[in-house]
């Protein structure tokens, strides 16, 4: 016992002299380290290259959106939780869906046994989306749908149908349509992309979404890269930034190949990023990302609209930094990450709840997450000036170094043939696996300290109430609902719509209008996907 206390009295040395991305950090930074060229490399906020922020007055002009992740069980239960959270002050939400819906299956598909309503809400019909949005309208409520192509084509179509039915003009619909074909399913293996739907169809629907949104829904944001999900695999901050940007460059290239003008789709493109626990590295990452993005879009794509040059991002505080053990510690971690995100000048923040390592959030843990954001927003004064860390010798130096590392990684990806190729050849999976193993070894060896895991551990089982999974109950309710739903509809209309879907899938037309008609005539999520698979002659492997 005395050995440990001796160490504390003497004072431990800080051992890690590098950021998590491997950038070496000096004891002391001086003016010459900053290498600041204010005019060319920084600029005022709201001015190219936007290092200091994408808008001139940032939070002084408009507070970041405080989002909460919602979605579980049936649409009714999700709607109730949404109403509760609006009462508690959420400014927007992220709608998470269950795994069956993520893969385009109806809740009663046999493949989905035990999974209905577990990771998020089940959405199989237009009526389901209407129920979720009962009392909430898509022109006043900002929803970000956590979803991917091909499913995002159907969810977008459902949104359009919802707006139509409520007499809301499409050009008034707000929120974000997430649309990342590669990283959405936990940022992981190729299998998540290729097992249940053909690559060709996934990329085509991704672009159908971009095209439809850019032509009809000027206020709707679309997410080009889910860098958060990728980051959760264990890659570094620099890798997150590089792969996110490289991914977006590929999607933009494909959109341009389709004939879409860069300034027609770039202004509403957005990212979903992580904010990890290495405080200053994250700030440097976001500042570097803004600078890199602005230059790449202007130079490589010839974008002329200044809105196209802006790297806009929502963030979630990193779930993978939170522990299952001693969950209240996670409030502290998330708060630090929140402050990091605020100092980074991001547009929207979702704070991970303290029970992240245990289950989906409860009302209590979501309220705590909201209060954390509200306290930082309203009590700390952090929002009073834009980019307060600018000019710090350390932060400017770190921003430059981060930019270098990110650009060099982007170059590596380009040498492989672009990010999509990097995924398809397994190159990216190799990077991810190397990073995961490295991270695990660092924690196992104690080199990377995680309080409650490899230091300052306790044996107690956490005594907090957690969200309970009722998969069997939800599965049964949904099966009954879908049976009734299918009985109620006009079978002939359904057949005709499915024929139209198959034909459209085989053609090169934009599929969104056909899917809108289909969902309005009560064709389900699963049925639409199956029709598209048939058109692409794709069979799910046994």
């Amino acid at each position, binding site marked *: 016992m005395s050995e440990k206390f001796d160490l504390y009295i003497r004072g431990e040395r800080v051992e890690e002299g590098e950021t998590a991305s491997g950038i070496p950090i000096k004891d002391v930074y001086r003016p010459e380290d900053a290498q600041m060229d204010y005019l060319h490399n920084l600029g005022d906020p709201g001015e190219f290259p936007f290092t200091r922020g994408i808008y001139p007055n940032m939070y002084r002009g408009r507070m970041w959106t405080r989002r909460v992740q919602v979605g579980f069980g049936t649409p009714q239960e999700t709607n109730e939780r949404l109403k509760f959270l609006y009462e508690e002050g959420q400014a927007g939400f992220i709608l998470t869906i269950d*795994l069956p819906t993520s893969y385009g299956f109806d809740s009663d598909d046999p493949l989905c046994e035990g*999974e209905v309503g577990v990771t998020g809400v089940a959405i199989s019909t237009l009526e389901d989306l209407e129920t979720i949005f009962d009392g909430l309208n898509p022109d006043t409520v900002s929803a970000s749908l956590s979803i991917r192509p091909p499913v995002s084509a159907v969810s977008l179509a459902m949104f359009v149908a919802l707006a139509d039915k409520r007499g809301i003009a499409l050009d008034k619909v707000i929120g974000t349509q997430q649309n990342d074909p590669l990283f959405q399913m936990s940022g*992981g293996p190729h299998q*998540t992309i290729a097992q249940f739907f053909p690559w060709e169809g996934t990329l085509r629907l991704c672009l159908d979404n971009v095209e439809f949104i850019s032509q009809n829904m000027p206020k709707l944001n679309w997410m080009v890269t889910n860098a958060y999900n990728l980051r959760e695999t264990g890659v570094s901050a620099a890798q997150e930034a590089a792969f996110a940007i490289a991914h977006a460059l590929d999607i933009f290239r494909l959109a341009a190949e389709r004939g879409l003008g860069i300034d027609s789709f770039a202004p509403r493109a957005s990212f979903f990023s992580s904010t990890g626990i290495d405080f200053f590295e994250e700030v440097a990452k976001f500042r570097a990302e803004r600078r890199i993005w602005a230059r790449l879009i202007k130079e490589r794509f010839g974008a002329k609209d200044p809105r196209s040059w802006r790297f806009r991002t929502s963030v979630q505080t990193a779930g993978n930094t939170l*522990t299952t053990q001693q969950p209240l510690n996670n409030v502290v971690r998330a708060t630090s990450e929140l402050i990091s995100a605020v100092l980074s000048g991001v547009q929207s923040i979702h704070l991970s709840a303290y029970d992240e390592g*245990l289950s989906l959030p409860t009302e209590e843990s979501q309220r705590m997450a909201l209060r954390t954001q509200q306290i930082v927003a309203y009590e700390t004064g952090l929002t009073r000036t834009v980019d307060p860390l600018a000019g710090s010798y350390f932060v400017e130096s770190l921003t430059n170094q981060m930019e270098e590392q990110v650009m060099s990684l982007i170059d590596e990806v380009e040498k492989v043939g672009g990010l999509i190729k990097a995924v398809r050849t397994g190159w990216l999976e190799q990077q991810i696996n190397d990073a*995961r193993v490295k991270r*695990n070894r660092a924690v196992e060896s104690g080199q990377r300290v995680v309080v409650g895991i490899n230091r300052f551990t306790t044996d107690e089982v956490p005594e907090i109430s957690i969200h309970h999974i009722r998969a069997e109950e939800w599965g049964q309710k949904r099966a009954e609902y879908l049976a009734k739903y299918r009985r109620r509809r006009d079978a002939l209309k359904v057949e005709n719509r499915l024929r139209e879907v198959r034909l459209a899938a085989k053609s090169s037309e934009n599929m969104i209008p056909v899917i809108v008609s289909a969902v309005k005539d009560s064709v389900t999520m699963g049925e639409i996907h199956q029709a598209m698979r048939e058109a692409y002659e794709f069979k799910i492997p046994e």
Partner: protein
Amino acid sequence: MRSSRILLAKMGLDCHDTGVVVVAQSLRDAGMEVIYIGLHNPANKVFQTAVDEDVDCIGLSFLSGQHMTQTRKLLNLLNDSNVSRPVVVGGVIPFDDIPGLKEMGVAEVFIPGTPTAHIVKKIGELCQA
């Protein structure tokens, strides 16, 4: 004494593979033969592969809440076929579900934060038993 052979698999629609990939590497580093068959495996595939590859132990990984349903399916197959192999489960498993899994016949449950060295040791013991 041949080196331990272990089959690792994910079942159901869950797509989170960081844990299982890291454990696979650690087991290989410790000299074990690891057969990892990826995601979305139905129970009969896990069962058949375990038999065909003559493994000593089966490890299942879950994050998204389907652990009870899927583990039960696999254990039923093993029991019905009179094939006896230790099954271990790792991942985000609520504390309340651990007794239920053990009652089903699961030998060990490894939750997040468990040192990998501990997992390797336990699996090694089960394989050599």
